């Protein structure tokens, strides 16, 4: 088939339309949030003392970390799935969540006696954390990988990793409402590991499924 012939076929198909990728991302964010919420409510639900916990800095700070991750990953993945789009600024924003966590960890180390550090780091929920963040995030991750496939990421493995971070940020936001361990020491350790599991799955998914 000559290239001119191919162009005839493509042109004859010009009227077929598809949802713009940007809309697909917003839709997937909505669907993924609903899925994460349903799994969260069915599996663990919020902690019983959430009303009082809302008044503590440590509890609220968890949502700042996880939402900063989700929002920055969402911006980056949109750029990564569009060929030729500049990713530099969105990539730079990815430092926000880790930076906030580091600041919180330093403040925690300064305000809590050293004897308490170990107890706060290990907490009482680490198995729950490592189980349920990936469990809440796996559905959203599948959706984000599907949207990546719908898009055109020129670096599929990187894009898949960011999909994992996005799913992780979303899942951790829900999980944070359940967990009694509010210390930044706990969050910095176990949330990070749980989210890294999703990021690794995302990278694998990007490598295996995101082809175009």
């Amino acid at each position, binding site marked *: *088939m*000559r*290239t*001119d*012939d*191919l*162009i*005839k*076929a*493509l*042109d*004859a*198909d*010009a*009227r*077929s*339309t*598809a*949802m*713009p*990728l*940007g809309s*697909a991302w917003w839709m997937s964010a909505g669907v993924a949030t609903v899925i994460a919420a349903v799994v969260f409510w069915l599996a663990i639900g919020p902690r019983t003392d959430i009303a009082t916990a809302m008044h503590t800095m440590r509890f609220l700070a968890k949502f700042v970390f996880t939402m900063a991750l989700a929002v920055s990953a969402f911006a980056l993945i949109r750029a990564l*799935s*569009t*060929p*030729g*789009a500049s990713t530099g600024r969105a990539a730079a924003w990815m430092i926000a969540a880790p930076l906030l966590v580091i600041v919180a960890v330093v403040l925690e180390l300064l305000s809590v006696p050293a004897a308490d550090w170990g107890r706060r780091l290990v907490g009482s929920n680490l198995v729950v954390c490592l189980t349920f963040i990936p469990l809440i995030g796996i559905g959203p991750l599948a959706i984000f990988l599907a949207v990546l496939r719908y*898009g*055109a990421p*020129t670096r599929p493995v990187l894009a898949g990793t960011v999909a994992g971070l996005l799913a992780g940020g979303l899942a951790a936001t829900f999980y944070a409402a359940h967990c009694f361990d509010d210390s930044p020491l706990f969050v910095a350790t176990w949330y990070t590991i749980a989210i890294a599991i999703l990021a690794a799955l995302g990278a694998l998914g990007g490598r295996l499924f995101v*082809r*175009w």
Partner: protein
Amino acid sequence: MTGKDEAELSRLMRAAIAGDERAYADFLHRTAALVRGFIRRKIVQGGVDPEDVVQETLLAIHVKRHTWRQDLAVLPWVYAIARFKLIDAFRRRGRRIEIEIDEIAETFAEPEAETVSERDINRALDGLPPAQRSVVSSVSVEGCSIGETAAKFGISETAVRVSLHRGLATIAKRFGAKQFGRAKQLKRE
């Protein structure tokens, strides 16, 4: 690769998205010429047929045109896709070379086979379900319109459009598949 190209191509693409088929054909022809120049400059060693990469790029541009945002420049988008498809082609060539070394005797025995340029897209086309293949061939190689194709096969124009769309999407997907060039079966959409 100038500002004039950019302005003209993004104007055509915007018109195409708004439903102007003439503009789309125009866009594709101009883009093909630009991509051809780009690919030929990039391929300094043999082994990859530039025109195969041009065709793969055009198909990808077509099936991924919903990823272009009107506020983005169109040329960086086009070249990013072309570069991706070129790297893909080299990756596949790495695999093929292994095959060719195995069959080196045959290659020497039949030098005339090399003069026939077997387009990748023809193999992808051959892998389509018969109904889609005949519609895609009719509209492309035979140059029939949608209406003529519908009359020829005794099906509705909508059916022709659906088959054409699915056929092109499947070919594009096959180009993106990891095992392209080796896998015999073609996953049906």
